[in-house]
């Protein structure tokens, strides 16, 4: 089997990997932002429950979360597809990480800015939208980028529920050919995806580089 054939075969798994990556990002960044407000909010019971969620999500391996979500729901009689269940696990897991990153970002904004805004007569919502969020986004971008790159690699975990992602397809090909070349090709794919992701992150960071302190 030639190298071109291997790449063409692996491309079949690219769809699942990219879809999982993109949909997880699109869902968990906004959810993480909302979650950070629960963490910083004044509602004690909500905070308590949210903290338990954070501990569980960040304290257990994602591979087990994927496994439990899929088999747990299906054994309980809630029939959910492999992809949907993997996506749900990933969104729940990454929301926890993103929410902690946003919390750190929001807390790093000086109290004085809130006071200044309130003296100038800006409403709370306006202060958040026009003053806090633009700064927070710039502050958290490097940590966010780290997680995004991690997410690309974490998608490889879904082969545990037999989703045909990049790694699963490469693994099957490797078993058929009795050769590890397909796995090397898979590594090249992940590297290429992350090269693009890093490039995009750099572009965004550059764009956010106005009024740097």
């Amino acid at each position: 089997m030639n190298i071109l054939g291997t790449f063409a075969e692996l491309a079949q798994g690219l769809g699942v990997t990219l879809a999982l990556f993109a949909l997880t990002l699109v869902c968990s960044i906004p959810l993480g932002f909302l979650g950070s407000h629960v963490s910083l909010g004044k509602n004690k019971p909500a905070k308590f429950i949210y903290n338990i969620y954070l501990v569980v999500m960040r304290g257990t391996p994602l591979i087990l979360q994927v496994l439990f979500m899929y088999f747990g729901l299906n054994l309980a009689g809630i029939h959910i597809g492999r992809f949907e269940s993997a996506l749900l696990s990933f969104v729940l897991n990454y929301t926890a990480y993103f929410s902690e990153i946003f919390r750190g970002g929001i807390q790093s904004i000086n109290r004085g800015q809130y006071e200044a805004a309130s003296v100038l007569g800006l409403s709370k919502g306006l202060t958040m939208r026009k003053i806090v969020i633009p700064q927070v986004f710039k502050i958290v971008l490097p940590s966010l980028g780290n997680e995004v790159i991690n997410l690309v690699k974490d998608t490889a975990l879904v082969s545990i529920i037999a989703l045909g992602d990049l790694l699963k397809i490469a693994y099957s090909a490797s078993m058929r050919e009795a050769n590890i070349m397909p796995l090397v090709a898979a590594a090249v794919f992940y590297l290429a995806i992350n090269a693009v992701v890093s490039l995009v992150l750099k572009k965004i960071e550059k764009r956010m580089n106005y009024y740097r302190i």
Partner: protein
Amino acid sequence: MKKVLLIALVSILAVSVFVGCAPAASGGDNAPAANEEFVKMGEEAAKNGDDSLKNVMDKGEFIVGLDDSFPPMGFRDEDGNLTGFDIELAKAVAEHMGVNANLQAIDWKAKELELESGNIDMIWNGYTITPERQEQVLMSEPYMENMQVVVVPADSSIKTLADLAGKKVAVQDGSSAQEAIADNAELAASIGEQIDFKDNVTALMDVSSGQTDALAVDLVVANYYLAKDPDKYVILEETLSPEQYGIGFRKSDQALHDAIMQALSEMKEDGTAAELSEKWFGKDVTTF
């Protein structure tokens, strides 16, 4: 610039969602006409409280759970299509019954969970019959003979099982080769070290690199890999243990089990089964 980026992103998303959510490989194309004999069988059984076969005949398909990285029983060709002896046999059975075989790739470690949670209707992919498994699932009668063998490099000094004393032996973790060694107390005690690999290919690579001395594996799997590299390895004449492959069903699905076994024996009579076996193994290894 921004717009172009946005459009690009949205289209990537749309395409990937479409690809990602595409249904898993399904066996047949159009719903075939159900075989009346099995429809009747299903209705009979349903009267007695077992509607497993009736459900299959009504739906027009049964779901086969398989490991798609286990050549030659079940694996993917270069175009990503599922193929292998068990796959073709399952498809032929489905055709005989007038239903579709919906082939679902699963993770082999979670096969019994997949069966129990109803994601698949049967485990059919070089599934060795063992007492432990018989307790968990409704195991069919054996449908083919197999055995556990030892593979060594062609130039190895190991010629018999006794020569394995003090040597490093590789096996696939969770495989029946692992159990075969454990069951052979004398051998288990004499070998130097047993190393459990995730799969047979990495285990074989370790043997080829000289890190381990031998690989214990299913004969059908050994034959598949040895055919790829005929001069590199040999199979010891002395074998570990004979074993048989079966099909695993849910304990409650007796009617479905009976129907599949009946279909198999009818296919034995008309020669379909022997033909498939000849194609994959060069001889008839079926035992039903």
